[in-house]
């Protein structure tokens, strides 16, 4: 009966393993927080970039001073695709932190907010949200997040000294822009800087053109989501054509294929190049590399077909969300923290901790006076209501391969038309994965 005995032993081992496993799982579960009046501990997950961590730390510190019975612990996660996976996995396994910062717009939509996140429509600050921002954290008119950080402008950073010296004017149409480029080239300066060493920077000519697209067709985003318009058609193809034109005209810096954005910004500030299509959140980098030249860098929105419609494409800030699993005293404490984040005082604390990349998305918040010139240049567009959120905040359809395609078009490896068509194929996969209608 040796066999039987060993079977029984194996059975005991299995039972032990199961019991250990159960204990392991049990350890991961936090308790639901104390009763009213007792101190509450919350966790707050942000990505590990300086521009997220610093404001988050400052917000926590200021908030805890006013609310000594609430303790908030900061956790960090990687940025980019790896970070997306962390957020999605932790949400779906119900192990998300009590508060977490994440993108607004289409990435937020991909989290399946109604089933995963706490609805926040009844919070007092919801009425103060900027009209451009509100839809980016809402599903079916239900708000799920409070703005974290400031918006960023996408367009052309330019060297003001070069413009002064050559007597140029800020262009409002693409033709004016190209005319400026020709004069700059004649003066022996690289007209346009690109930094394909960091592939995402190659997308700007296409993505920052969205205000111009929306100016021609205000409902372009909805038509795009339901597969009625394409990038290979006018007006959206213009962005790809711009990339091609710049490359064909040989307007680029020699090392455009290898440098990264801090080096490119430096070239711009030092006047070795005149234009750099970029997001304004990168400008504070100059404070470490070229602090004395930071105000030589200005900003204008990407020129389009008509001067009257010219305006800014706006990148909205991320938001702080609360997962649905948070309940009771913890939920109350979390909502209290959100109300602080979405208050003028909260904006001020964040602005002090990290230089804002553009206007705040909350009524009553103002930019401090000491922000770099390029960021000040954004405010008029927002004040004159000449700003449109970038497409990724309006439509969940964004293909993952755009940055590779724009590198190819921008390096002259692929034609604009071909690139736009390829991108249309790329987004099809995204739309199908999301289960959108019409694809």
């Amino acid at each position, binding site marked *: 009966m040796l066999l039987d005995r060993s079977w029984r032993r194996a059975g005991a081992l299995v039972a032990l393993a199961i019991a250990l496993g159960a204990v392991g799982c049990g350890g991961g579960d936090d308790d639901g927080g104390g009763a009213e009046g007792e101190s509450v501990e919350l966790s707050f997950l942000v990505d590990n970039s300086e521009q997220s961590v610093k404001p988050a730390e400052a917000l926590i510190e200021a908030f805890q001073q006013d609310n000594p019975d609430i303790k908030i612990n900061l956790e960090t996660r990687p940025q980019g695709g790896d970070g997306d996976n962390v957020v999605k*996995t932790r949400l*779906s396994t119900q192990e998300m932190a009590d508060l977490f910062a994440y993108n607004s717009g289409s990435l937020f939509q991909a989290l399946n907010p109604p089933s995963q996140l706490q609805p926040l429509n009844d919070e007092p600050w919801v009425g103060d949200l900027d009209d451009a921002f509100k839809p980016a954290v809402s599903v079916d008119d239900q708000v799920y997040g409070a703005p974290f950080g400031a918006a960023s402008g996408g367009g052309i950073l330019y060297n003001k000294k070069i413009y002064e010296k050559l007597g140029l004017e800020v262009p409002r149409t693409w033709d004016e822009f190209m005319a400026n480029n020709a004069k700059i080239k004649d003066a022996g300066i690289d007209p346009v800087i690109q930094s*394909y060493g960091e592939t995402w920077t190659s997308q700007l000519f296409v993505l920052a053109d969205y205000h111009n697209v929306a100016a021609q067709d205000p409902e372009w985003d909805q038509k795009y989501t339901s597969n009625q318009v394409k990038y290979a058609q006018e007006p959206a193809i213009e962005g790809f054509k711009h990339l091609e034109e710049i490359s064909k005209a040989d307007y680029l810096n020699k090392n455009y*294929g290898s440098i990264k954005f801090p080096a490119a910004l430096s070239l711009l500030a030092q006047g070795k190049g005149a234009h750099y299509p970029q997001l304004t959140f990168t400008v504070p980098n100059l404070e470490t590399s070229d602090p004395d030249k930071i105000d030589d860098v200005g900003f204008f929105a990407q020129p389009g077909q008509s001067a009257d419609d010219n305006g800014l494409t706006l990148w909205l800030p991320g938001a702080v969300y609360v997962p649905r699993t948070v309940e009771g005293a913890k939920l109350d404490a979390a909502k209290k923290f959100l109300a602080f984040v979405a208050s003028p005082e909260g904006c001020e604390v964040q602005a002090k901790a990290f230089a804002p990349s553009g206007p705040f998305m909350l009524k009553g918040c103002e930019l401090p006076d000491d922000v770099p010139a390029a960021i000040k240049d954004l405010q008029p567009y927002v004040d004159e209501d000449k700003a449109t959120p970038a497409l990724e905040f309006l439509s969940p359809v964004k293909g993952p*391969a755009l940055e*590779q395609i724009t590198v190819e078009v921008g390096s002259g490896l692929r034609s604009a038309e071909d690139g736009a068509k390829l991108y249309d*194929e790329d987004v099809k996969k995204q739309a199908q*994965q999301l289960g959108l209608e019409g694809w």
Partner: protein
Amino acid sequence: MSIEVRERAMPRTGVARPRSRRRAKKSAYPYWFYLPAFAVFFVFFLLPTFSSFYYSLTRWTLFDSEFIGLENFQRFFDEPALTKGLTNTLIYAVTTSGLKVVLGMLLAVLLTSSVIGRAFMRSVVFFPVLVSTIGVGLTFTVLMEPDQGLINDALGLVGIEGPRWLVDPKYALLSVALVDVWKGVGLATVIYIAGIVSVPREYYDAARVDGATPAKLFRYITLPLAWPATVTVIILSLIGGLRSFDLIWAMTRGGPGFTSDVIASVIYKQYQAGFYGLSTAGNVVLFVLVTAIILPLYSFLRRREVQL
């Protein structure tokens, strides 16, 4: 037959009863002995393999899946990056494998001769194999930087303007392949050393008596008798080349654009973008491709082996 003879010669333990005689013929251990190994094999190998065949036919997320038949495969083969990835994979695999065979053989001939510092040189050649691939990739990315990198600086000293290595679409894939060869040639060399050392000295002596030149010794003795080593090197490096990913990802991420994409990096990007069904289908394709190339190649190469 021989098994049975050996079995009868073995002393029987008390555990074995007459009833178990038939079973003992098939396996040396009682069945429960296999259970842990089988459980591991089932849970971690069989189950994922077969479930991936199923999931390649669905569009799935962490929460649910929708059966869509062969649509994923159709989409995967429509993928514009795929043709590029496929040719790049083949170019990469053949280039690295070929260079490793040639260089590995030459290095092994050198390192089996009575050269000074042989043991030291052997370990130096093998050293890159031990270093982390990602580390090698990142280091060479810095070295190959076109404007400030050490390699182009060094070439500049002797008056050569080096290529723009990883940034130039023409050279990106080849640059990575060269680094792969540098990193992997040590293993090929070690295999060849073992192969060459196992060739009996008498063959060389006999050939020399017959008046063979060193070139002829290499051509007619070393080369054919080291054939099993060549087979191993080709198979190993070809499989490695076909599924190569880490070095390419660390150095170019498939760029510039799609110019150095291989199948594995195409699949990875799809997975990263959340196209889980599509990337599962890609993995099934990769599995079939590797099998379709390696199996016939292996049996072909085996047939050419020289019996010692």
